[in-house]
């Protein structure tokens, strides 16, 4: 094999680009040309390294050498020293934040990567439609251990010791849940997997089911063994056709291989799994509603207690866990409770998958240890805010969560900290907002969702949320008063305090947290009748600055309603009573003469 050619990889992530990354590439190319190496040594752009605070990043292959904070001026030294003479440029090497020891290669750096993939361990690695791929990657190994070496109480002990908490939103200790289900003796028990992922923008459960369905099946069997159940049900939304197909094929293959059904692995333990479909009602993610839906009843929650662990599906003890929770089980068995408990914070162990969305560069799924800060998630893994805009807020916990602000950026993310900050972990949706987002509108947007998705059973959720939404609408139209803000707060608190299930108990969170963290923005809407972010159409007016207007008539021609008048080469005027605020004129104007007020 010929000796590997030298190659230079420059981070092409948005953040590095913004930091003169392009100039670094240009200079490196110039330096190579100067040394007539341009044909021998390739320079390519890569995606984001996730080291955005250290950018621009340059990596030299072979050898995996990583240089950080490279300026265009450093190009000369990199080429003349490293490329020409094979000597590393010490001062540009990545320093271990603690030891200040320079780390030379990417491999060493890997241990400092922010992400740890536990739930997603096999996603993107195995062929989900081939059970042998899963088996090759330790699939069903934990099950074999459990069935041959552990008693149900041992399994429960391990899960309890691991500190695993429910990933679906509640954060209830999983081991404790199993223990309660185990202690409720019954001739029939059920293990239910909640795959009714409903938070807008969240898709970690879908990803797990599509990428590694066996992780969930295996964990459900383990759970069945631990609580002494022999039937499993997966409640999955019918809107996930691919996940359903892969799950079905995985179940069939597991049955064919004797990993589901009678006498699993010759140990005498029986367990089988069926699929139940949800029709996309958000509230069916609530476990009592989910169980009613599976029973063929109207998907609406009932008062707890009785908890499903006492009286669940068909009145039998039922353990309901979320997909991601199940996906963490086998590694805990194989690597031990202590290993899992070693990751994360005091009360939130392990990792959490987040779905990054909104005004963030690297939209997608990430799995990070509990205790990571919002800053690390957004600015390092997420590649920062799009178009270099200013970070304003991050909504965690989906429509039930709250907005975190700049002051929360260095808060370690875990169940309890998020709750204390007025938000929640939820299922792991993380929507990033920038300076252009109006927080009143954001609250309204989430309320819109909960108003639609309330089951309607209890009055505070059914009517209260609607009233909240109406009042927010009123405020975004500039018709609100200061007294309305107090009313907004009182209604929110009462809805939280009196609603039947988690949906209503959390739905006012977006209102309360924006009201707390962005009170000035609300006040601007009601007192000044202005939307500081310029989002609320009713509160803005397009205006032509005469001094800048050259009278090109472009704006008048593009205006769809004829609201702009003016002679050629004379300053134009917008008639606000006709203007529909579509913004077409502003986009067209080449002279920055049109502004929003």
């Amino acid at each position: 094999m010929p000796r590997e050619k030298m190659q230079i990889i420059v981070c092409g992530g948005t953040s590095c680009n913004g930091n003169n990354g392009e100039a670094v590439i240009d200079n490196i190319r110039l330096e190579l040309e100067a040394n007539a190496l341009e044909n021998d040594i390739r320079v390519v752009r890569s995606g984001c390294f996730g080291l955005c605070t250290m950018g621009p990043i340059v990596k030299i292959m072979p050898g995996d050498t990583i240089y950080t904070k490279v300026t265009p001026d450093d190009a000369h030294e990199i080429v003349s020293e490293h490329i020409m003479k094979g000597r590393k440029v010490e001062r540009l090497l990545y320093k271990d934040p603690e030891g200040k020891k320079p780390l030379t290669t990417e491999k060493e750096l890997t241990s400092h990567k922010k992400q740890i993939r536990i739930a997603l361990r096999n996603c993107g690695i195995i062929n989900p439609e081939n059970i042998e791929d899963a088996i090759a990657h330790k699939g069903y190994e934990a099950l074999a251990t459990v069935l041959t070496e552990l008693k149900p109480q041992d399994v429960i002990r391990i899960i309890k010791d691991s500190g695993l908490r429910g990933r679906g939103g509640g954060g209830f200790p999983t081991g404790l849940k199993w223990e309660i289900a185990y202690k409720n003796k019954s001739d029939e028990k059920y293990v239910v997997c909640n795959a009714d992922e409903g938070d807008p923008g969240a898709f970690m459960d879908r990803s797990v089911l599509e990428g590694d369905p066996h992780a969930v099946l295996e964990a459900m069997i383990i759970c069945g063994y631990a609580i002494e159940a022999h039937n499993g049900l997966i409640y999955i939304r019918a809107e996930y056709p691919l996940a359903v197909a892969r799950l079905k094929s995985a179940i069939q293959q597991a049955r064919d291989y004797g990993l589901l059904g009678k006498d699993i692995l010759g140990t005498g333990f029986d367990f089988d799994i069926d699929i139940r479909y949800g029709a996309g009602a958000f509230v069916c993610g609530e476990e009592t509603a989910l169980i009613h839906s599976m029973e063929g009843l109207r998907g609406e929650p009932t008062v707890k207690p009785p908890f499903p662990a006492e009286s669940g599906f068909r009145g039998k003890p039922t353990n309901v866990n979320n997909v991601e929770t199940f996906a963490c089980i086998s590694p805990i068995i194989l690597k031990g409770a202590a290993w899992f408990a070693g990751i994360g914070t005091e009360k939130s162990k392990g990792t959490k998958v987040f779905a990054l969305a909104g005004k963030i560069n690297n939209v997608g799924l990430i799995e990070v240890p509990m205790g990571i800060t919002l800053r690390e998630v957004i600015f390092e893994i997420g590649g920062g805010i799009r178009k270099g805009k200013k970070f304003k807020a991050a909504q965690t916990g989906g429509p039930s969560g709250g907005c975190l602000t700049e002051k929360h950026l260095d808060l370690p993310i875990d169940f309890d900290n998020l709750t204390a900050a007025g938000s929640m972990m939820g299922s792991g949706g993380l929507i990033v907002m920038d300076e252009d987002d109006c927080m009143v509108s954001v609250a309204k947007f989430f309320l819109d969702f909960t108003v639609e998705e309330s089951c309607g059973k209890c009055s505070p959720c059914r009517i209260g949320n609607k009233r909240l939404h109406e009042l927010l609408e009123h405020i975004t139209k500039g018709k609100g008063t200061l007294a309305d803000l107090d009313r907004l707060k009182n209604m929110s608190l009462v809805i939280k305090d009196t609603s039947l299930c988690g949906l209503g108990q959390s739905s006012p969170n977006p209102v309360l947290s924006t009201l707390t963290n962005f009170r000035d923005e609300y006040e601007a809407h009601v007192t000044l009748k202005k939307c500081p972010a310029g989002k609320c159409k009713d509160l803005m007016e397009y205006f032509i600055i005469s001094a800048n207007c050259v009278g090109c008539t472009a704006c008048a021609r593009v205006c769809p309603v004829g609201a702009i008048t003016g002679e050629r080469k004379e300053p134009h005027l917008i008639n606000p009573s006709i203007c529909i605020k579509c913004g077409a004129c502003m986009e067209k104007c080449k002279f920055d003469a049109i502004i929003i007020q």
Partner: protein
Amino acid sequence: MEMETIKLTIDNKTVEVPKGTTINKAAKELGIDIPVLCYMELKDLCIENKPAGCRICVVEVQGRRNLAPSCATKCEEGMVVKTHTTRVLNARRTVMEFILSDHPKECLICAKSGNCELQSMAHQLGIKEIPGQEIAAMSTYKKDTSPSIIRDQDKCILCRRCEMMCNEVQTVGALSAVNRGFMATVAPAFEQNLEHSTCTYCGQCVAVCPTGALTEVDNTPDVLRALADPSKTVIVQTAPAVRAALGEMFGMEPGTLVTGKMVTALRALGFDYVFDTDFAADLTIMEEGTELLDRLTRHLNGDKTARLPILTSCCPGWVNFFEEYFPDLKDVPSTAKSPQQMFGAIAKTYFADKIKIDRKDLVVVSIMPCLAKKYECQRDEFSVDGNRDVDFSISTRELASFIKQANLDLNNLEEGEFDAPLGESTGAGVIFGATGGVIEAAVRTAYELHTAKKLDRLDFTELRGLEGVRSATIDFNGLPINIGIAHGLGNARKLLNDVRAGKSLFHAIEVMACPGGCIGGGGQPLHHGNSEIIKARAAAIYREDKQKPLRKSHENPFIIKLYEEFLGKPNSEKAHHLLHTHYFDKKKKIIVKQ
């Protein structure tokens, strides 16, 4: 076994209650009445509605994050509960404002005005304005009118009592929650009209509705029109259960009998003759009792076409129920018409002849504790050339309203007497109003007809009571007759399933659709969840029976005379023509409208 108890503190007072008791009930022990709206319990009938949906009854529980619905939260040892802290009061008021903000403010002209639990609650909580009403959207739905029941879901507060009654108690399944969120409401499947649903018009949904969302069709204007028409002779019949409940609407104690005052009121309202459905009940016993004995004899003689058990057929809700759910068994019930319809048939033949008028000029009005009677009198088979045997049926509640409209004070009216000949009845006719009464009346007559012996006791207490399904064996002089009784259609369904499976050991079964029988009918004054009222009405009915000089239908002299003068004998051809009917397969095919 000693019952496990729990000690807790409510509003600084300690109380000890059995394990499993809810906060609400524990508070009651202390005399603390926590306001409830959706919650309803008919204790003696074992009916409880506990969706914990309205959230009015919330209380503060020390150490709990949010407020607890007292109707559905069980007491725990050492619990500290506060029922009226500022947090609770503010929450209750705000939730009430939410509910009212989505409720029409037309109390002045609402059928439930003055008798509405929502109105009372708004009053109790001192709600005088609804903040934000001007920007609040209202959820509105199409109105639905059937022969018996009017649905106006704009006024629904989702207490789900009707749904519980319709599904759990009656197992009719006509009503359930539909839609989501703000537009959630209770309706027949696909939001069809009640007429196209499996509704039996039993009216139990109306009986429990706290607001004006479910009300009866008001036929008093029709009656008023007839009374005002000089060309019409208008006669009225009153069902047994009415006299035991009407007084409640005039401030009298539940269980007050107002038979005589009611007669006077009806006469004062302008009815030409005031008759008694009890007369027709005696007639029903003659026909149904004879049919029972006939089938029984044939059956004992090995006639395979004689099907047993015989089922009573007085209750129109029940008839609708088996026509819908058990059409395969439609030859099992007695073919005898209900007393209401027997009365109509006799009135428009025998009585019309007697007073020499054409049936078209005779208007028959019935006062019923029932809403299904409105539908029953409109059935095609109960009219002749388009002229109904019973023209209009109005409920006890409508009669009370009618009496009030005429500014009559029932309390101060003289005791009147029913007119002859259709006003005379025995105690057997009276007890038709309570569960077990029809079969008891039938036993009194059938026994004597079958054995030709005189009964030495008339009170068959083993047939009385409020248990949902009851059974007893009556010795017919050596022949044991097995009797089953069910009230509430869900209970009836259990007995019917046995009949269908050929497992029923009964010779005769009495069914009444409403819990408690007619005294708990859908047209009665509202019990507002107090089952003591139903018990008091039953006691009143049996009291009236006891006071009657004659207590066996076959001893009613006017019945004897009716057979002599007109019908011949029970189950004669003429009797069959006028007093018997047949049933239909009315199983609904689900039609989804586009």
